[in-house]
């Protein structure tokens, strides 16, 4: 290969890795029903267009009940759609994984897990074979935190109790 080709390849590699690093966490989905595309994350904002059921969209972020999306059509439309009108297509996967089954069966190899080797699923057969284990309940007791500790923990995270309106708590 000519030296210029190597140089070009190197530039391409650097550029593509930059793109990978800079790419936002985009999820892909499709509309499950016809929906209005709004200019902002609010029903009071301008209605930009009407989208159809089964339209494919890229999802960039969520603000309350709204997803910021771009449609796949040309030219694409961008705006905000009620999240309940969209379903994800496929599953977000970690690098090198084939799907959810692979994701879960590979937990023991995950960098976030160091001591979960050998874990299995949990199904009816497990329940049918279960025997009461009071030692495990005693172990559970050792993890309990006090209410004071939880309040301190909440404050550290910026959490505070909110007063809900009658309309909001109405069942």
């Amino acid at each position, binding site marked *: 290969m000519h030296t210029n080709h190597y140089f070009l390849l190197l530039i391409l590699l650097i550029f593509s890795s930059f793109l990978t690093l800079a790419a936002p966490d985009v999820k892909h989905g499709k509309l499950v029903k016809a929906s209005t595309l709004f200019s902002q994350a609010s*029903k009071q904002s301008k209605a930009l267009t009407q989208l159809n059921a089964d339209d494919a969209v890229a999802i960039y972020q*969520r603000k*309350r*009940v709204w997803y910021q999306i771009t449609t796949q059509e040309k030219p694409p439309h961008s705006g905000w759609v*009620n*999240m*309940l009108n969209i*379903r*994800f*297509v*496929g*599953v977000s996967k970690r690098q090198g994984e084939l799907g*959810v*089954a692979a*994701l*879960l*069966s590979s*937990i023991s190899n*995950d960098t*976030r*897990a160091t*001591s*979960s080797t050998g*874990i*299995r*699923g*949990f*199904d009816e057969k*497990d*329940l049918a*074979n*279960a*025997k*009461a*284990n*009071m030692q*495990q*309940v005693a*172990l*559970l*007791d050792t*993890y*309990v*935190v*006090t*209410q004071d*500790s*939880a*309040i301190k*923990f*909440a404050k550290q*995270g*910026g*959490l505070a*109790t*909110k007063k*809900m309106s009658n*309309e*909001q708590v109405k*069942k």
Partner: protein
Amino acid sequence: MKIIIQRITLLIIVLSLFSCKSTGLKIGNFDVGKLVDQGVKIWDANNIDQAQEVQFGKNMSAVLLGARGLYQNKNINEYVNQVGMWLAINSSRPDLPWRFGVINSSSINAFAAPGGYVFITLGMLHKLESEAQLAAVLAHEIIHVTQKHYLNALKDSSLRGAITETLFMSAEAYQNNTGANVNDQQYRAWAKKITLATQDIYSKGLDKTDEFQADQQGMLLLAKSGYDAYALIDNLQLLASIAADDASLALLYKTHPTAEQRLIALSEQAEKLSGINGLSLVKRYNKRISTE
């Protein structure tokens, strides 16, 4: 002679009382055996006091953890307890002895047991991306506890066979009340009864109405606690994106409505809470979960 006849008559009356269907097993002054035997036709969860409810939950938890034990990482379990306890403080029953645990299973699921016991599987924990999503899972389960869904489920005819006074008794109380020596045989009898009942209850699952209520009230609890209430919808979106026949979801889908049904049912609640902002706490979640 007359006295002897009177005593024999009295003895016959006493014996006949004990030979009726009630086992006479009591916790404190409460005749659980009588309630259970009279039964099931008049079952009312409100007749069970908090101590009995907690014991019921403890027994069910023992069976659940007998099927699959806890993920033995103190940091992770304490983190889940801190999130759960903060939600519980904001719930309608803050004074229950709340306990939260991570079950060492790759399945995607969460469980509650009466009296304040809540569990999430490690598989579910790994699917989540924020503290608000963790709180959403716990909030749903907390509502099952505060609304006494499992106690009320015992009204269901298919669970009548599961109702036994043993559910509400510790192994020690069972041994004491049956007048037996504290020995392995008695423990096994107790364990067998609670195991069979718990298997019935968890395998059948709750009524769909209870599941929808847990979602709706769970969103409200999230909002009240300062979390992003829509994290619960995030979780359902994630579940909906996983193939329904994925083995990791088998038990969840056997005992719950599908994620799609739950999403549809949440539209009204989502609208009600539309003006409320809450926190997601993604960084804290990643930091605490990475301490594994």
